């Protein structure tokens, strides 16, 4: 804190010199010199006091900090004079730093930060790759996991869990549907978590008959029970069973949300909220099949300290080969590849689906940041050159280069610092918004927080912004020749100098490059989203509503009771005024693939079966979704006990080729089903994949507990209360999970794509605006600097059109080069984009043309204003000023 000491040092010096004078005067008096004369003599002996002080001060030297602060004060004074410019810079930086910080917080909280469990690096997730199912790895068969547990040494523990929807009621109120986790009792031992209140699960909780206990997540405790500590020991009803709450999990325990750790990757989860309810699962290994039960359970394990993931994986794969031969009846030569297991660090498993999106957004936002900085550099350059005379004078008087450099940087630093702080505040506000909006499809949403890492990142960005926007102009100014400046009077020599305009051209080009790249990528995403929405879906979501309900287990244990319930609801729905058709389906459309079954021809047992999604439907379902019939017929009332099936076109093709499958028999769900119809392929499971092969059976056979009703009618919004009433009339025990329009279900299933496109659109808009501002700024500046030259040209007969051309050309070349480079770069980077895009190739000539057209239009608009000013220069006036 040297600069604070300067004042006291001045005082000390004064005191020191005064004592010297006193002593000298005293000495002279002792020698007999008269008092007044002695004082003067002492003074004379000391010499010029002011000069001495100056000299001493020079000896102290200027400390670095003092200089830095002097320049910052200077910068602040300058900013007050140009408050409009300062506000623009701060606003730009706030937006750029705010956006970057917000996106980085997401990257940090979701991808980088370790999971909230103890020693989370030791946690792994296990998958099985089942050859006959093809495609992605799925959650393993718990019966296999049990063998791993018995026979390997690499894990301290392995636990399995199942995601579920439970109808939950805390009292006599109507049951609500909440997400729940059914887990082996040792799940919390694997995650090494201690309860906040009560206890967590013990081995005996997994014994049939003793499993009516539940543990609440902290947020569940807060939302469902207002954080009431007396909740321990209370009995609630879950799926109409009495269940005792035994414990509360701590607030920092964040179980991976349902959209982040899925047993079956193709399944889409529409809710991202963490499950509030944990219940023990009774693991009946004896009753499980050796082959099957894939993709239902998720298995997490904790590696022993020192055990490597590869080692553990090879151990369990050894067991897999044995099981394949001994228990699954697989030929020994195929055993090695039939069902392989793989392990993945839990952190990677949780974040993998959102990783590419987030990194991609990060790249986009940094691009935006770069554009903003280039813009600021450009603006600062203009101002710095305008201050050139001041700098030239200081150089001529012998100012140190580094001081002038710092002088140029100080203003950028002050502005960046303000922008940085307000950017962080903006980011905090945006993140609060994100964390509280349930439709954002990100895992670990509850863990999103600004932390030290993020603040460091914001600080680094601020410094980078300072350097990028301040260093260029500052370096240019100190390189300027002071003599030329001072002689030129106004410094005209430097305004129009070749190197100055070259730098400007580079900056404009760089900005065009960044802007074009962002714009192109955004348009690709927009086109992809548009494609998803407008492609041939094979069904019609308009004018239909979906009610997703959960039939509780106990009261509806008898299959006939479920059939009766479904029929009652359908009757009620069809009786509603304005309803055209209503149908039942076992799985909500657009919720991804599920109920994977094998479909095999009865007449060709040697032929491999195909994998299909099994769906239970009622008559009226196809009419309600408006799926197209290709051959045969849809379900009718007479199919009730007939074991009939409707299959999708692709499934028919795969099994029967071009022959008609109508009337043929196929093994499905353990029975021979007769194919009565072929329905056109549709994207009913997901808009983002190829149409899945589907086999539909009549709901009366093995009626499932999960139920969705699809209702088509005029004015579907007005039907909602009636639909709700129809369900409740049929049974008060049934919880309605979701009631929404089919269109809403469709947009929800595209939440991630919509978010990406929305964010990118805002980035691209900002980038385009910044680029326009940059071009406008540079051209206005050049026009002002070249006013006299333009005047001379006009006096010599240059037409207005020629002046326009002259001005536009200043920006035209760099913009065009930047445009080309941007288009080329996007084409190169296309490969990385491919996995985000649907129905659009990364190199799309139409999109490229549109990008070019949009950008050139924007650049022209930005350039036109300065060009008009140039063309309206009055030659007489311009020449008179010369």
């Amino acid at each position, binding site marked *: 804190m040297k600069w604070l000491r300067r004042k006291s040092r001045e005082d000390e*010096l004064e*005191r020191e010199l005064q004592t*010297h004078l006193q002593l*000298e005067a005293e000495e002279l008096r002792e020698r007999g010199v008269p008092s007044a004369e002695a004082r003067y003599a002492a003074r004379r002996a000391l010499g010029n006091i002011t000069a001495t002080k100056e000299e*001493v001060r020079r000896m102290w030297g200027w400390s670095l900090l003092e200089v830095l602060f002097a320049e910052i004060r200077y910068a602040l004074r300058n900013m007050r004079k140009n408050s409009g410019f300062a506000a623009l810079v701060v606003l730009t930086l706030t937006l750029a730093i705010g956006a970057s910080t917000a996106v980085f917080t997401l990257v940090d909280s979701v991808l980088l930060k370790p999971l909230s469990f103890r020693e989370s690096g030791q946690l792994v997730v296990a998958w099985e790759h089942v050859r006959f199912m093809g495609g992605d790895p799925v959650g393993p068969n718990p019966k296999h996991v049990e063998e791993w547990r018995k026979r390997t040494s690499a894990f301290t523990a392995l636990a399995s869990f199942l995601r579920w929807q439970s109808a939950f009621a805390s009292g006599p109120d109507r049951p609500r549907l909440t997400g729940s986790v059914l887990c082996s009792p040792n799940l919390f031992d694997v995650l090494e978590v201690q309860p906040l209140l009560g206890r967590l699960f013990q081995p005996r909780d997994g014994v049939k008959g003793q499993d009516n206990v539940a543990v609440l997540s902290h947020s569940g405790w807060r939302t469902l029970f207002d954080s009431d500590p007396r909740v321990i020991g209370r009995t609630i009803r879950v799926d109409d069973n009495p269940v005792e709450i035994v414990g509360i999990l701590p607030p920092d325990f964040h179980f991976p949300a349902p959209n982040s750790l899925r047993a079956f990757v193709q399944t889409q989860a529409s809710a991202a909220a963490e499950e509030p309810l944990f219940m023990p699962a009774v693991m009946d290994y004896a009753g499980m099949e050796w082959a099957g039960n894939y993709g239902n359970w998720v298995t997490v394990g904790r590696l022993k300290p020192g055990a490597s993931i590869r080692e553990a994986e090879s151990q369990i794969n050894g067991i897999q080969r044995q099981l394949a031969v001994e228990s699954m009846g697989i030929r020994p030569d195929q055993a090695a590849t039939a069902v392989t297991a793989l392990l993945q660090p839990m952190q990677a498993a949780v974040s993998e689906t959102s990783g590419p999106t987030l990194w991609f957004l990060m790249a986009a936002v940094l691009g935006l940041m770069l554009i903003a900085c280039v813009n600021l550099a450009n603006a600062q350059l203009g101002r710095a050159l305008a201050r050139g005379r001041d700098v030239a004078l200081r150089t001529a008087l012998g100012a140190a280069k580094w001081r002038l450099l710092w002088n140029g940087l100080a203003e950028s630093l002050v502005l960046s610092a303000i922008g940085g702080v307000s950017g962080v505040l903006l980011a905090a506000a945006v993140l609060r918004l994100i964390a509280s909006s349930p439709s954002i499809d990100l895992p670990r949403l509850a863990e999103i927080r600004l932390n030290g890492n993020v603040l460091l990142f914001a600080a680094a960005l601020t410094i980078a912004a300072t350097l990028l926007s301040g260093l260029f102009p500052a370096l240019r100014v100190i390189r300027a020749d002071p003599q030329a400046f001072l002689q030129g009077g106004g410094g005209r020599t430097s305004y129009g100098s070749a190197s100055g305009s070259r730098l400007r051209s580079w900056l404009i080009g760089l900005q065009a490059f960044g802007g074009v790249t962002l714009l192109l990528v955004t348009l690709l995403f927009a086109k992809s989203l548009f494609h998803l929405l407008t492609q041939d879906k094979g069904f019609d979501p308009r004018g239909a509503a979906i009610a997703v309900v959960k039939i509780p287990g106990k009261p509806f244990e008898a299959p006939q009771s479920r059939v009766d319930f479904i029929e009652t609801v359908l009757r009620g729905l069809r009786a509603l005024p304005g309803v055209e058709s209503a149908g039942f389906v076992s799985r909500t459309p657009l919720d991804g693939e599920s109920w994977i079954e094998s479909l095999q021809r009865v007449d060709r047992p040697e032929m491999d079966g195909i994998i299909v999604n099994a769906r239970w439907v009622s008559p009226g379902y196809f009419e309600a979704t408006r799926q197209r019939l290709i051959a045969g017929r849809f379900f009718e009332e007479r199919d009730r006990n007939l074991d009939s099936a409707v299959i999708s076109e692709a499934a028919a093709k795969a099994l029967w080729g071009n022959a008609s499958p109508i009337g043929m028999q196929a093994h499905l769900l353990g029975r021979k089903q007769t194919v009565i119809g072929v329905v056109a392929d549709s994207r009913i499971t997901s808009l983002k994949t190829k149409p899945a092969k589907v086999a539909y059976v009549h709901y009366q056979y093995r009626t499932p507990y999960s139920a969705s009703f699809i209702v088509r009618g005029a004015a579907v919004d007005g039907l909602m209360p009636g639909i709700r009433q129809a369900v409740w009339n049929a049974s008060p025990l049934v919880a309605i999970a979701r009631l929404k329009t089919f269109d809403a279900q469709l947009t929800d299933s595209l939440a991630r794509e919509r978010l990406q496109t929305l964010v990118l659109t805002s980035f691209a808009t900002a980038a385009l605006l910044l680029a326009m501002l940059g071009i406008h700024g540079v051209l206005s500046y050049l026009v002002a600097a070249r006013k006299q030259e333009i005047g001379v040209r006009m006096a010599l007969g240059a037409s207005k059109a020629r002046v326009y051309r002259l001005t536009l050309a200043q920006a035209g070349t760099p913009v065009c080069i930047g445009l080309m480079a941007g288009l080329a770069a996007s084409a190169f980077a296309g490969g990385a984009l491919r996995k985000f895009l649907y129905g659009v190739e990364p190199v799309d000539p139409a999109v490229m043309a549109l990008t070019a057209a949009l950008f050139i239009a924007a650049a022209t608009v930005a350039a036109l204003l300065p060009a008009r000013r140039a063309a309206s220069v009055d030659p007489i006036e311009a020449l008179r000023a010369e």
Partner: protein
Amino acid sequence: MPKESTDRIQLLQGTLDMLILRTLIQGPAHGHQIAKHIQRSTDDLLQVEHGSLYPALHRLERKGWIGAKWEPAGKDLKREFKYYRLTPAGRKQLRAEESKWKMLTSAVARIMWPVEES
């Protein structure tokens, strides 16, 4: 007093630092004492410009060769002086300056009063 300056010697550039350091080897002293000591030791032959003494002191302090502290002078507790004292670094510097000075004077002497080679 202009007469005085004629029979007094202007200090050589850089020697003041050495003289200050040498003075302080006898113990802490304030600015006035240092000036007087140099003057008296040379029978007033070397007139230290008081004006150049203080910048030199501050320079030496900045370089870390001497330290400074405000202390009362002897019994008179009411009056404080800024006492300078030699630091270990200053002691080392003094030795270096001394040997340099010896080399310089002997070199100059050899030219001024050459000794006949025997």
